[in-house]
């Protein structure tokens, strides 16, 4: 089922959680709503699920082109998975999954044997059939979340909505589960929307990423698009670590220290200042100055743990700069604390306006 969100606004007292948000989700896609806390991503998900009512007169939610704004969450046929699982503690895992089938009106309720069959098939799908007789408190966090997913799938929802599904799990389980979710989606092809504040998770799992901030949608695109072609400084900033360099604009060029960089053509040539954004792994360190643009810096701190070596520098104008270099390069350079180095940006992104999270 496709979902269309049209000009939805939602306020809580004085706080505006969503401002005129519009979004289209085609059938069968896996979409990530990505943003910092307070960006309105969970509110948007809850409005789609019918757990939250948008401001009266503000817009509409369409399911398959049909207006579903006034439908209750009961009638929307959405499966909702909560961050803290929200399992029924007094029921076994089996009964939790069977709940959605058992509460159906008698006429459309499957027979007991059908329920058994359906629930065991679902528990097999989430690889937990051996835990059917246990209670939720006897399961680990990752297992509970899979039960919650099976429970949501039991009612054959047309849309699956997941609110920070892996948010309260530890890092390792989280990585396993999100790959598993991706595989599950490839199998079932049910339109799915999940909320996350973890950019890595969004970029890895989703077909398309919706980056949200302060109740607005900043950019919608494939993980590749939002990562490599961010629409604005916020998106660039949010999707990974970044260094900011403030520069002056003169004669169509941005000047920072001794460096001069071409201002992209579509940028306002009349701007006085511009900000250059460079990701830490796109800065190169050398002991000798290169003939391209470079600046001088002093090594402040080195952290060699991990796949990349993280080096903290203080630039010639006194700002901290983060650089990531390969272990190989680190060995070749024989970097020491307080060494004088020359830094060259390999790739950069220039925005006229500045953005801070």
């Amino acid at each position, binding site marked *: 089922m496709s979902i269309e969100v049209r000009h939805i606004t939602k306020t809580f007292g004085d706080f505006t959680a969503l401002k005129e948000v519009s979004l289209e989700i085609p059938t069968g896609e896996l979409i990530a709503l990505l943003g910092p806390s307070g960006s309105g991503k969970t509110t948007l998900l809850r409005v789609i*699920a*019918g*757990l939250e009512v948008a401001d009266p007169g503000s817009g509409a939610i369409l399911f398959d082109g049909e207006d579903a704004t006034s439908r*209750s*969450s*009961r009638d*929307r046929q*959405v*499966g*909702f998975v*909560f961050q*803290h699982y*929200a*399992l*029924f*503690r*007094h*029921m076994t895992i089996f009964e939790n999954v069977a*709940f*959605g089938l058992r*509460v*159906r009106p008698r006429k459309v309720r499957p027979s007991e044997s059908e329920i058994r069959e359906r629930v065991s098939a679902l528990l097999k799908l989430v690889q937990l059939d051996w835990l059917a007789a246990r*209670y939720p*408190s*006897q399961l680990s966090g990752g297992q509970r979340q899979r039960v*919650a997913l099976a*429970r*949501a799938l*039991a*009612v054959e929802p047309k849309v699956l909505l997941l609110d920070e599904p892996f948010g309260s799990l530890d890092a390792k389980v989280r990585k396993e589960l999100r790959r598993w979710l991706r595989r599950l989606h490839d199998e079932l092809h049910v339109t799915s929307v999940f909320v996350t504040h973890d950019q890595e998770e969004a970029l890895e799992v989703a077909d398309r990423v919706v980056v949200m901030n302060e109740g607005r949608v900043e950019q919608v695109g494939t993980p590749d698009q939002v990562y490599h072609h961010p629409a604005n400084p916020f998106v660039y900033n949010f999707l990974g670590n970044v260094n900011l360099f403030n520069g002056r604009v003169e004669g169509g060029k941005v000047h920072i220290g001794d460096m001069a960089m071409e201002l992209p053509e579509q940028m306002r040539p009349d701007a006085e200042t511009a900000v250059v954004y460079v990701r830490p792994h796109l800065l190169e360190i050398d002991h000798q100055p290169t003939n391209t643009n470079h600046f001088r810096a002093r090594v402040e701190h080195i952290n060699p743990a991990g796949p990349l070596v993280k080096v903290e520098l203080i630039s010639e104008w006194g700002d901290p700069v983060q650089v990531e270099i390969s272990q190989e390069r680190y060995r070749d350079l024989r970097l020491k604390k307080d060494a004088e180095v020359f830094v060259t940006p390999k790739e950069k992104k220039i925005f006229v306006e500045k953005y801070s999270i």
Partner: protein
Amino acid sequence: MALSLKQRSVLPGFGLTMGFTLLYLSLIVLIPLSATFLKTAAMSWSQFWNTVTEPRALASYRLSFGASLIGAAINMVFGMLAAWVLVRYSFPGKRVVDAMVDLPFALPTAVAGITLTAVFARNGWIGSYLEPRGIKVAFTPLGVVVALTFIGLPFVVRTVQPVLQDLDAEIEEAAASLGASRWQTVTRVILPALLPALLTGFALAFARAVGEYGSVIFISGNMPMRTEITPLLIVTKLEQYDYAAATAIGVVMLVMSFALLFIINLLQWWSRRRYA
């Protein structure tokens, strides 16, 4: 490894606190209770049996335990409702209502009894409306139920309230998104989760009601065989200097209360076990 009663624990002071607890329980609970049994032992078995099974005593047990059970059951329903309102909604004056729940705790029981009698008597505020319609409250078993309901209310509210507070609204949202109606959500999701707390509240309200004296004796009218509660019967025996009979009836009450509380505890244990 040698079997030892004392288990090693990071929390210090087990010996001291456990010793104090046992001493305290003995002084406050066990010694007075065993005195009751000792006093009763002065009677012969047949004397004991005759005393505790005389028709007047039997009628008083029926009233005391019956009215207490009914009162506790009423409180279980309406106490839960009150707790629900106090936890789930916010409205002006909520704090005042919340404080009012404890009034039956704080009010001297005799005051409560006199007030209830005045209200429900033939010329009282409520009684003057009920009696012409054939409903007599004051000086009937119904009056006893009213008094016992009044004094038991806070127990259910105060035991259910914290559990309800802990019960996530998400649970209800989950049920709704799975297609459950409001009624199904309440009966299948909320009530089972509240059951242990409800049983605790029920047990406490019941235990309090069985021992209640002050508020009941005013409204009941104390007619033997009809509106005489067991604690009053005990007092009557004491006033007749029949100490052995008084303690004998006391022992019966004690045993019955203990048995009922034990059953409720078993039920609670059974329902709580499922939460692990």
